[in-house]
Each structure stands twice: as C-alpha cells, then as structure tokens.
C-alpha cells in the first residue's frame, strides 16, 4: 500500500481479521505466515475495490497518483526506489506479490511460497518473470533518464 491512510486502514482490518478468525488457525503454517497471508489477501481485495471505484469515478485515474516514497528506504536509494515502485505497479498481481514479499519484505522463498500457497518452484518462476518484466520496463525508462 502506497498511501499512509490506506496502509493504516488495512492494518486495522488485518488485526480485526486475525481476532475474528483466530479459532480457525490450524497451525499448518507459522503464525507469521498466516498473518502475512491475511495481509496480502486484505491488501489485494482493497486494491481491487479501489480500482473498481476509480473506474466509476471519471477523471480520477491511477496515473494521477504521486510517486511513492517508502519511508524506510536508505537516503542514497530514494530516487531509484521511487522508480522501482512505479514499475512494480505495472506487474501482474501474482508477480507483484512474489516480488514485494521477496525483495521489499525480504522473506525467504519458502515463506513466500507458504504465504501465497504455491510451490517453491512456482515462486522462483514468478520472481524470474517479474525480474524480466521489470528489466524490460526499466530499459525503456533508461534513455529518458539519461536526458534528465
């Protein structure tokens, strides 16, 4: 989530969801993984809802939103991170999820697989495709960057 208020809203929803569904936690995954799974699903649902709403509201497109600045990024990486988040946004949902969990959250591949309920091989394949797509997008952005 790239807007602070939205991130807060989702955090609250995740806590409530954990509270409501605590009895359904079977222990087949770690608690950490289970909460990550709830967070990913809540965020994806929220994004879908927002997309539907913005589609109905004329003139307010997703392109209009400002560049995202992650609050935890190192000062020297700020500009590059802005570009990274811009291109991450263009990835298909599953590639985006795998990439963010691996390279932004820094989760081990196996945990990413557990959160997404897919195999380790599938995660590696998603990450490979995500990196390939990101490189293609960045190659197109590079000449523009050189001019600036």
């Amino acid at each position, binding site marked *: 989530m790239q807007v*602070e208020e939205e*991130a*807060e809203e989702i*955090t*609250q929803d995740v*806590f*409530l969801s954990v*509270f*409501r569904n605590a009895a359904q936690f079977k222990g087949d995954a770690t608690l950490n993984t289970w909460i990550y799974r709830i967070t990913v699903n809540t965020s994806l649902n929220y994004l879908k809802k927002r997309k539907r709403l913005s589609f109905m509201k004329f003139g307010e497109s997703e392109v209009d939103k400002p560049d995202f600045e*992650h*609050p*935890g*990024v*190192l000062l020297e*990486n700020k500009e*590059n*991170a802005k*570009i*990274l988040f811009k*291109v991450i946004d263009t990835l298909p949902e599953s590639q985006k999820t795998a990439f963010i969990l691996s*390279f*932004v959250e820094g989760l081990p591949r196996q945990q990413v697989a557990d959160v997404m309920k897919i195999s380790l091989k599938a995660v590696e394949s998603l990450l490979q495709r995500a*990196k390939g797509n*990101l*490189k293609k997008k*960045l*190659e197109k952005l*590079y000449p523009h*960057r050189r001019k600036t």
Partner: protein
Amino acid sequence: MSDNENQEKWIEDVLGSMNKSERARPKPDLFTKIEQQLDKEGAIAVPILWRRVAAAAAVLLLMLNGLAIQQFSQSNELVPGEVTLEDTYQQSLISDYKIYD
C-alpha cells in the same frame, strides 16, 4: 564503462534499491485505534460465546435426562422372584386387615 554497461548497472541498482531498507513504522496512535476496535468486537463476541455455552449446557442436560430415564426404566423391569416395594406394601396392608384374628 560503455553505455550498455551503464544501463545494466542502473537497472541492477534500481532493482536492488530496497536492499537494507527499514520497515515502515505506523503512527503511534494506530495501536490504540486497533485496541478500541477490538474492544467493540469483543462486546459483540461475548453474547455469541454465551449462546454457545447455553446450547452446550442444554445438550448436556438433555443427555443426562435421557440417561436418567433409561436407567430408571431398566431398574423398574421385574426380575422373576424378586420382591418389589409394591409387593411389600400390599402384604403389610393385608396383614393390617387381620389385626383382630
């Protein structure tokens, strides 16, 4: 460094720009907000819990009643040769009538 190499390096830098980054921290009042919401949820959740307890108690009561009825009916079945309380009562009545014999 050639232009191609520069481009490659830049792309790698962008892809690795989240390395060593810290986690985003929430505003200090977020936890209080969540606690307040959980309190509201808790107030709704208690009656549901009590309804479940009441249902379980009702089932237990029915089972105990069933068991008691079953045991009572089994103990009331006559065993040949056994003297029942009723027999003793009738005998004492009969003996009472012969009081002046």
